[in-house]
């Protein structure tokens, strides 16, 4: 039983590929849905136009059997199918772009289904400064904005664009950074802290945290 208590939870690849053994996901978020608005508007206009073309072709009466009608109908239908795929792929790509905050680092994943697969990581101890940028009517009205994470090295800063509730994530990153520095300080002084899941352990039967605790802002405290 003692071994069970001392043994830490292995989080390797638990929530995302590359997650380290002692790494806990504190938060994750996607972009604000407002980023989809221009794209949805364009798709809506184009699809309505194409559907109107198809309806007018169908109501052509006698010309329906002609080759010209069928050619135009086929072209319009193929365009509509392409537009549908474009629309849904863009919607699905929305779910791929994730910002993850762990107790070690900030990870910005820019992925699409077919084209892009980028990952940007900044360790918490590298963070020198964080800036919140929320200028304009819409960002303040709909509560979204950018976070600029400046790192201590000469490499480029990490920009987290169009985050919902930027103030919350701004505070969360600051909090995680402070926690990380505190933990490292304790380690340097030779005090090895227990993993958080064991710190307030009532009994050995409650040694694992539920997944719902490792989620997004739903666990936030106001």
């Amino acid at each position, binding site marked *: 039983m003692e071994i069970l208590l001392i043994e830490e939870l292995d989080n390797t690849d638990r929530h995302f590929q590359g997650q380290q053994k002692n790494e806990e996901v504190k938060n994750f978020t996607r972009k604000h849905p407002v980023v989809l608005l221009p794209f949805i508007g364009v798709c809506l206009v184009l699809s309505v136009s194409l559907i109107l073309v198809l309806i007018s072709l169908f109501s052509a009466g006698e010309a329906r059997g002609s080759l010209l009608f069928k*050619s135009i109908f086929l072209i319009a239908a193929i365009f509509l199918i392409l537009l549908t795929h474009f629309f849904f792929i863009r919607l699905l790509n929305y779910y791929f772009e994730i910002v993850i905050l762990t107790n070690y680092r900030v990870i910005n994943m820019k992925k699409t289904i077919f084209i892009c697969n980028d990952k940007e990581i900044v360790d918490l101890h590298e963070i020198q400064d964080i800036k919140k940028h929320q200028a304009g009517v819409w960002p303040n009205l709909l509560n979204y904005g950018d976070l600029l994470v400046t790192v201590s090295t000469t490499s480029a800063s990490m920009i987290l664009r169009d985050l919902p509730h930027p103030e919350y994530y701004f505070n969360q990153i600051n909090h995680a950074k402070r926690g990380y520095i505190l933990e490292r300080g304790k380690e340097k002084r030779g005090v090895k802290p227990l993993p958080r899941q064991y710190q307030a352990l009532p009994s050995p039967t409650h040694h694992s945290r539920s997944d719902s605790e490792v*989620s997004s802002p739903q666990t936030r405290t106001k």
Partner: protein
Amino acid sequence: MAPILALIAGTAALVSFGFCVVSIRRLYSYIQAHRFEESQYTLLLGIVHLHWIVGLYLIVTLSMSLALAIFFIPDLL
């Protein structure tokens, strides 16, 4: 010429459906690698689940492919 159009329409319908299936397969392989607990703060507009969009995508693509095929099949026969 009409059978050629029908062949093009059939190919477009098949390719469209195939593309949809490949996209969904890639999506689910990604989901298996990233197991996050979703909440109202992470879903699209707070309520739209990814599985709903996938289901809708499949239904729309399938129905459009079928409609295209059904419209042009008589030219092949």
